[in-house]
Every structure is written in structure tokens, then in C-alpha cells.
């Protein structure tokens, strides 16, 4: 392209003073919030230095993991994965209809509004809190953990699924409607084929994070490796605690890698 004749190209726009003022205000606000939260969060960075001796001893115990009871750890690690499997599968089954019923391009407001609030509640409460409740309801053990993960994950997946539904191309759905298909047909043939890869990806991702969550729900007695971990830790058996943590890290890493591969294949 040829350069335009001199004088016709406007100069680059200068940054307006108003814009600079906004930057200053934003920075001041961020610093203000951080200072305000310092007190409440009980920030004592110097303690890391003061108690370095204690921490070195503590760390020393961890450096010699004790794998003598590895069969128990493996067994309980498998239980944890099994909790994650059933918690995720039940959540997916329930999140499919609920996700569609949360999408504002599919159902009227008086349907999606209450269901969204219900899902918000399921999501707002952490798995561990649900686990505490279910341990009371169904007793100690993996079933309580499975239910906790199931309820929380349903809330998460219903939201993710409905966001995928809201982002679809509406034209194929209209194509189905124009042939004389009913609402169920529109969902099954028009919407689900479009969102399926994303749904599978979300479900696998939640499975990954549910394996991590399943170790945590064990801490409150809801079964699996977390329960063994907590018992070892409270018995000051740091060598065993260390071995259990290695089991968790290796398992979670392996499942993450496998699940990432799977997700890459579906998208």
C-alpha cells in the first residue's frame, strides 16, 4: 500500500488524563484491599524463619517414607478412585437433564431460575461439608464420601453443561423444529450432538478433581486413603504419612495425564 499524502493521517491517540486517573485509583484500591486482609489472614512471614528448626525436624521425618504397609495404602487408594468414579458417574447422569433445564435458550425463566438456584446451593457447599453431613446420615465409610462428591459435582456439572448448551448454534435446532420435531427431539438431535465433546471433556475434568476431593473427604471419615492419612498423621507417624502422600501424588498425576489424553481425543 502507498502511504497516504502527508497531513491526512491523524496522529496516534494520546492517553486521556481521565484514563490515567483510573489506573491510579485501581492500583490504590488493590493495595488497600491487600493491607486490609493482612490482619485477618494472620500473616506472620517471620515465623517461617523463627521456627525453622522445628520445620527441619518435621521435614526430616518426611524424607524417610515408610512403605511397610503399602498393601493397605494401595487398597485404600483404589477405594478413593472408586469413590470418585461413582460420585462422578451419578453426577453426570443427573447433570444431563438438569444442565439442559438450567439453559435459558431451552426453557422459560420459571424453570431455569429455581433449578439454577438449587444447583448453586449444591455447588456452594464444599464436598467436605457434605461429607460431614452424609457421615451422620449414612455412617462412616466410602458411601458417605461418594454421596458428598455426587451432590457437589452435580451442581458443578449442571452449570458447566448448561453454559455449553447456551453457547450452541441455534440454527440446527431450528432445522429440527421446522421438520415438525418436538422439544425432546430438539434437545436430542439438535443440542446434544453439538455439546457432547465439551460435556465429555468437563466430565473427565471433574473426575480428575474428584479423585483429589475423594482423598480429602476421607479426612472426615468418609472412607478411602484420606482416612488412613489422617489416622497416621494424628499418630505422629510422619514416615507413613509421607508414604501415603507419595501414593496420592503418583495416582493423581497418572489419572490427570490419562484423562488429559482422553479429553484431547474427544475435542
Amino acid at each position, binding site marked *: 500500500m502507498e502511504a497516504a499524502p502527508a497531513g491526512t493521517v491523524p496522529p496516534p491517540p494520546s492517553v486521556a488524563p481521565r484514563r490515567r486517573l483510573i489506573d491510579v485509583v485501581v492500583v490504590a484500591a488493590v493495595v488497600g484491599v491487600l493491607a486490609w486482609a493482612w490482619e485477618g489472614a494472620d500473616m506472620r512471614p517471620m515465623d517461617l524463619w523463627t521456627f525453622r528448626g522445628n520445620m527441619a525436624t518435621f521435614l526430616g521425618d518426611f524424607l524417610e517414607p515408610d512403605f511397610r504397609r503399602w498393601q493397605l495404602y494401595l487398597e485404600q487408594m483404589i477405594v478413593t478412585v472408586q469413590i470418585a468414579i461413582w460420585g462422578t458417574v451419578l453426577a453426570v447422569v443427573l447433570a444431563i437433564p438438569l444442565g439442559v433445564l438450567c439453559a435459558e435458550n431451552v426453557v422459560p425463566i420459571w424453570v431455569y431460575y429455581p433449578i439454577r438456584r438449587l444447583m448453586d446451593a449444591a455447588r456452594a457447599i464444599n464436598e467436605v461439608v457434605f461429607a460431614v453431613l452424609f457421615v451422620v446420615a449414612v455412617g462412616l465409610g466410602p458411601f458417605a464420601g461418594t454421596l458428598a462428591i455426587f451432590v457437589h459435582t452435580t451442581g458443578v456439572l449442571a452449570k458447566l453443561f448448561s453454559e455449553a448448551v447456551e453457547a450452541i448454534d441455534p440454527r440446527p435446532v431450528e432445522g*429440527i423444529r421446522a421438520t415438525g*420435531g418436538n422439544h425432546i427431539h430438539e434437545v436430542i*438431535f*439438535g443440542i446434544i450432538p*453439538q455439546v457432547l465433546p465439551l460435556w465429555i471433556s468437563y466430565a473427565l475434568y471433574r473426575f480428575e478433581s474428584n479423585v483429589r476431593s475423594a482423598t480429602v473427604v476421607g479426612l472426615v471419615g468418609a472412607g478411602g486413603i484420606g482416612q488412613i492419612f489422617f489416622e497416621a498423621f494424628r499418630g505422629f507417624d510422619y514416615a507413613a504419612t509421607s508414604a501415603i502422600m507419595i501414593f496420592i501424588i503418583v495416582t493423581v498425576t497418572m489419572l490427570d495425564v490419562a484423562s488429559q489424553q482422553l479429553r484431547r481425543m474427544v475435542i
Partner: protein
Amino acid sequence: MLGANTMAVSVRGLTKTFRQGHRPALDNVTFSARPSEMVALIGASGSGKSTLIRHLAGLATADRDGDGEVRILDRTMQSRGRRGRELATLRTDVGVVFQQFNLVGRLSVLTNVLMGVLGRAPAWRTSLGQFTRQERVDAMACLDRVGLADRAAQRASTLSGGQQQRAAIARALLQRARILLADEPIASLDPQAARRVMEILSDINRSDGVTVLVSLHQVAYAAAYCHRTLALREGELVFDGPSTELTPAMLGNLYGAESEELFLPELPAQSPTPMALAAG
């Protein structure tokens, strides 16, 4: 079946306003089409062609304060902005072909065509994705008719634009629609694919006696394939008559400077199927 005086499509006083206080997208549109007619609908972009077709397809309803009415095969599809009781069954009688084809890209071409039976097959069965052998055979016949039988197993998204449009026509064929509405079916296609699609529509009109209403923004195609043309300008029906009357002078009269848009792009060099074919 249909009485001599039955109109395939009958529209009376249809007005549609999208935003209160703005110019209506459709302004008191009235016309009717006899069974087996092939009618072109022309107009510049924004003149209301798509809006009109969406109303005829039962995908939109007109203003509630007007007394507009759409009747399909002498049954009410919508009246005074409210859906008629028979809307669901009437949608099955009306096939729609869209500018962007509106196929489900991740489903196979065959499954997309099978969507044509949804209006008449038992809903519980089709909802489970089950189609009978006969339905599959019929769908293959429809695909064969548009020259795509060898593509049945492919995903719809792997087809070219012209092929997708032909698959969409196969879907309308399986639907056994008595009326076929085509909303800018060739606007996204190259000239060769466009001609092929127009020829298939013309063939369906002549061989099956299906009433075809096709919106176009190239007048040359209207003149080549349709005896009758309706012209919309800013939501108003400004012309309803033989396509042969649509001379450049006439169009200049109707549309002023906008008429240029209706001529571009030109028809391909090889002259398309002439009127003689359509009449034959």
C-alpha cells in the same frame, strides 16, 4: 384431496414489528400461492424475506395487535399473533431449507435426513434415536434424488456448502412436505452449486407438485426458475406478478439505487436452465 379452490399458502394482513416504535419488518403483507406453484421472493437484504418465511414456517408469530393470518392448506397456522392449534402438524407439511442449511454438523448425513420423519413417527421411538429399516431406505432414496447417496455415512459438517444444502433438501423430501420454503438457499453457494440446488427445487416442484416459495436476492435466478415473483421492499409487498415483467427498468422503479444489489452477482456465463425447462 385438495379442493380446486384450496390455497397452499394464504397470507392476509401480516404485520411484524420487532421493536416498538420502529418500522415494521413486515407491513401488511397479503398474498396466496396455489398448489404446485413455484414462486420467487425477492428483495434487498433487510427487506423482510427471511422474516416472512419464518412466519410461514411457523417459527415466528406476527404482531398480536394486528389481524394478520397465515393459512397453510386451508388450516390456520397463526392468527392475530397466536399459534394455531394445528401448528405442530402443519410444520410437518411445510419443509424449510435455510441459507445456512441448519444441519447438525456432528451427525451423519443420513441421520440429518432422517430428521424428516420426526413429525410423523412415534415420538418415543425417535427420541431414543431408533429409526425403522423402511425409514432408512426412504431416507436413502431421498439422498439419491439429490445425488448424495454415497455420502450417507459421512458427518454433515464434512460436506461442501452445496452438498449440505442438497442434504437439507433431502430432509424436506423425506418430510413429504406439501410446501417447501427456501430462505436464500443459494446465497452462500458458488454459481455452479447454486444452479444445481435451484434445479433440484424446480424438479421437486414439477415432479411432486410441491408448492415452492424461494427467496433470492438475484433476480436472474427468479426469472430463470419461477413464473411468478413477489417483491418485498422495507417489509411491504411491492410487486406480485410474472417474473418476465421484472426488467431492469421495473426494478429501478421499485427499488431505486438498491436495485443494483439485486443484480449482483450475475448469473454464471453458461446460461442456467431456461424457462423452457421449467415449463416442460
